[in-house]
């Protein structure tokens, strides 16, 4: 295919047009990232008076630190649960809305609204709902004989952050799933109906496989979201507690760096996170391009 080529009259114009984006990337990504890289190999004394270059010692210590390894496990549980919960609920909503004819737009609008809520606000919202002393949910659960207290119980705390983090992401997933459902030709579903497949069978053998590119894309996006974008939710609800039970990696970076003042370790942790996010991005691009046509 022939592509149309534009030529600029001035040699400098293309550079000038690219400059803003390049400058923003340099200032807000490359510079802090390299700072983190540099800092991850330094160690400061408790008063910040002396700094020593320690090579990879920060990393070595991290992988020997049982708290850090526990945080990795917590992050894994948290992100997998959040992804599963938000995606399955979103898929359920999308399938239900897709069946409607006239009210589709109205329902879509309502279901997308939560996405506009800031993570910290959502966190506070859930903080109130789940609050062991004044919250509505513990009150109801008490009626069923369950004593909810996420300040003491690690399991309760994990459920709280998973629900709070997933809730917002449902809107986003819903939109993609709905668009995915729209792009499945109606005649395929009709053909399957004639071929004797029940409604459930049609969903699992035709619709769900055809949604797989969307599902895969959302899975990566959701894992990235759960691992890196949920700082606000954690901060507003459990602050990593009780006893580190919800202290996911990205929150630990903040705790160790800005509360514990261990900048070297904090920087090393953020470098590890950077490597993870780069790996996820590579996986996303490689796989999605391969699987998009089934």
């Amino acid at each position, binding site marked *: 295919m022939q592509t149309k080529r534009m030529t600029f009259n001035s040699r400098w114009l293309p550079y000038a047009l690219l400059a803003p984006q390049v400058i923003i990337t340099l200032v807000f990504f490359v510079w802090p990232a390299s700072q983190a890289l540099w800092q991850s190999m330094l160690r400061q004394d408790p008063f910040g008076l002396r700094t020593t270059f320690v090579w990879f010692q920060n990393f070595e210590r991290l992988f020997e630190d049982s708290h850090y390894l526990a945080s990795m496990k917590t992050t894994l549980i948290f992100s997998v649960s959040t992804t599963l919960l938000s995606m399955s609920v979103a898929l359920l909503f999308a399938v239900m809305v897709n069946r409607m004819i006239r009210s589709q737009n109205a329902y879509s609008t309502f279901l997308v609204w939560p996405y506009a809520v800031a993570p910290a606000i959502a966190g506070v919202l859930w903080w109130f709902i789940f609050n062991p002393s004044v919250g509505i949910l513990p009150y109801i659960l008490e009626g069923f004989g369950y004593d909810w207290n996420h300040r003491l119980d690690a399991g309760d705390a994990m459920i709280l952050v998973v629900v709070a983090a997933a809730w917002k992401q449902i809107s986003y997933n819903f939109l993609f799933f709905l668009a995915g459902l729209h792009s499945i030709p109606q*005649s395929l579903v*009709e053909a399957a109906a004639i*071929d004797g*497949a029940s409604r459930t*069978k049609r969903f699992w053998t035709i619709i769900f496989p*055809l949604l797989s590119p969307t599902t895969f894309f959302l899975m990566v996006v959701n894992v990235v979201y759960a691992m890196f974008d949920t700082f606000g939710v954690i901060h507003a609800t459990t602050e990593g507690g009780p006893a580190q039970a919800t202290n996911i990696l990205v929150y630990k970076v903040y705790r160790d760096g800005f509360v514990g003042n261990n900048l070297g370790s904090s920087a090393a942790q953020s470098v590890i996170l950077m490597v993870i996010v780069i790996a996820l991005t590579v996986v996303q691009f490689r796989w999605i391009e391969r699987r998009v046509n*089934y």
Partner: protein
Amino acid sequence: MARIVIDDLHKVYAGGVKAVTGVSLDIADGEMIVLVGPSGCGKSTLLRMVAGLETITNGTLTIGDRVVNDLEPADRDIAMVFQNYALYPHMTVRGNLAYGLKNRGVSKPDIERRVNEAAAMLEIADFLDRKPRALSGGQRQRVAMGRALVREPAAFLFDEPLSNLDAKLRVQMRVEIRQLQRRLRTTSLYVTHDQLEALTMADRLVVLNGGVIEQVGTPMDVYAKPASVFVAGFIGSPAMNMIDAGYLRDHGSMPAEMPSGTDIVGVRPDDLLLAKPEGPHLALQGTVALLEPAGAESHIYVTLDGNSAPLTVRVQGLPSVLEGQGVPLYAPLSALHPFNKASGKRTD
């Protein structure tokens, strides 16, 4: 193998749009019925009602001995071939063929045997393990056919199955579908907007317009004796010429034998002659507006003196007329089709 009886079927959509109004049709066992009409005539809606993909607003539909109005598509014992083939893109050809059998709980060896039989019959055995996207248009069409016939249903429903193919392939598939249907003797309902497809494939032809049946008959009956102005214009290519009876009277060439109520006279392009025929005939005078050679035949567009719409004349080979030349035109009286303008119906 089944007889299909469509009795006074109506379809009114939620918005109040009437797609089909009172269609009745008795399809014999093993018969190939072609529903033909312009887009929006209700032919696809009618087919989809038979398939069970659209609800029936009113009327009775019987397949075999069962009234199937309220049955799910799967329970009607029919198979459908879709316009866009509707092959499952994530399954291999084998998977596509086997899907309907699996859902019906056919045993594994039986599935294997029937898939292989169908694949052999349609010459798609070589690509059983490919995905649909790796197939050409014609091969996909065969797979879609295969998916219908492995099920060995009581009836085949075709929804414009050839309209996505190029012209050459369309002719080839048309012949193959017809041969296959003849061999299997499965009752078939075939929807198309292509009048040539309709003429060549049908045992009986049903011409639909505006949700009602205009005419039912064998292709040659419909061609030789169209029941209405609409059918006359729709079946046959180039379309039948319609001459206003008023014009003929003014020019003193209106035949006296025309039935009463005739105010349009139709004549097929083949029946307009440049040379005077034997026997009683209609004689006209016009000017050649355009000469269109089309290989074995040529189309001459002739503007009648004092009449703006040109008539189409079809002749064999290349005629020795020039554009702008005055020519006489003749038509045997036996070849004229008399119609009434107000009712749109044939008057004889």
